[in-house]
C-alpha cells in the first residue's frame, strides 16, 4: 500500500512541459491543415449535415432530369412534315373533330389570302 502511494507520488512529479516553439509549431500545423482542407472543411460542422442533405437532393434531381427519358411531343416524321406544311395544312391537321362551319369559313378565307 505504501509502495503504491510512493509510486503515485513519484508519478505526480513526472510532467513534460511545452518548449518555447510549441505554439509556433501548432499554428504552423493549423495553417498547413487549412491550406490542405477542401470546401467541406470550410463549412461549419453543425451545418454540414444540412448541406450534405441539400447536395444529395440536388444530385438526385439532376440525375432524374438527365437520365430519365422524356416522352417527345412529336416524332421525327412529324417534325419533317411540319416544316413543309403551309398555314392552311397546319390548321387542317391541327384541327379537331368538333370544328364546324366557322372553321370551314376560316379555311376559305386563308385560301383566299394565299
Amino acid at each position: 500500500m505504501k509502495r503504491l502511494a510512493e509510486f503515485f507520488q513519484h508519478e505526480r512529479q513526472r510532467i513534460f512541459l511545452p518548449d518555447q516553439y510549441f505554439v509556433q509549431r501548432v499554428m504552423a500545423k493549423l495553417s498547413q491543415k487549412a491550406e490542405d482542407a477542401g470546401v467541406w472543411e470550410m463549412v461549419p460542422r453543425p451545418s454540414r449535415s444540412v448541406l450534405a442533405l441539400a447536395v444529395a437532393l440536388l444530385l438526385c434531381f439532376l440525375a432524374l432530369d438527365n437520365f430519365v427519358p422524356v416522352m417527345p411531343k412529336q416524332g421525327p416524321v412529324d417534325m419533317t412534315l411540319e416544316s413543309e406544311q403551309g398555314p392552311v395544312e397546319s390548321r387542317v391537321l391541327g384541327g379537331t373533330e368538333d370544328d364546324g362551319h366557322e372553321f370551314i369559313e376560316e379555311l376559305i378565307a386563308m385560301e383566299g389570302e394565299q
Partner: protein
Amino acid sequence: MASDDLPFMAGDSGSVTPLKRAAYSTMDVDRDLILLARAGDSSAQAAIVKQFSPMVFRLISRFFRVREDVEDIAQDVFIKLLTRFDQVRPDDNFPGWLARITINTCYDELRRMQRRRTAMEIFGPELGKERSVAPPEADSFDRLREGLQALDPKLRIPLVLKEVEEMSIEEISRNMGLTQTNVKVRLFRARNKLAKFLGGNKI
C-alpha cells in the same frame, strides 16, 4: 495575457517539473480571448495555445512517458480544439472542455497502442511495432509501472486521474462522460486488476 497570469508555468523542454494542479473549473479564462479565437483571430488562438499548453502537456504526461509522444498528442489536441472552435461556448467551462478533449485523445491513442500490442502478440513484432519506446527510468517502480500500463485504458485512465492527477470522482465522471457510479466501479476494477497483476491483495 502576460505569462505571469498563466495558471501553470512553462519550463524547459523535456524537463520533469512538479506542478500543483489547479482545478479546471477554477482556472482563469479570458472570455474575450475565446470570443476572438472563435472569430478566427490567429493571435488570440496562439494566446490560448500558450496559456493552456502546460495544462494539456501535464494531463498527457500522466499517460505517456516519451516526450515526443506527449508533444504529438498535445498538437493533435490543439488542432482539434482550433478546428472545432465554433462548438465552444464562451460561458461554458472552457478548461474542463479542453481537459475532456485531451483525455479523449489520450484514450484513443492508448486504445490504438493496445491494438498494436495485440497485433504484435498475434502477428509478430513487425506488424505490432510500438510508435516509440519509453527510456528506462532509474527507479524501483518498474513492476508497478508495468502493471499500470497493462491495464485496459478504460480502467487505467480513471485510476490515473484519481490517484495521480488527484481529480475527484465528480471531475472524472464529467471529463470521461460517465456516471459517478460507473467511475467508482472502474476504479474498483482497476485496483483489483493491478493488485492481481502485482500478485498481492486488494489495494
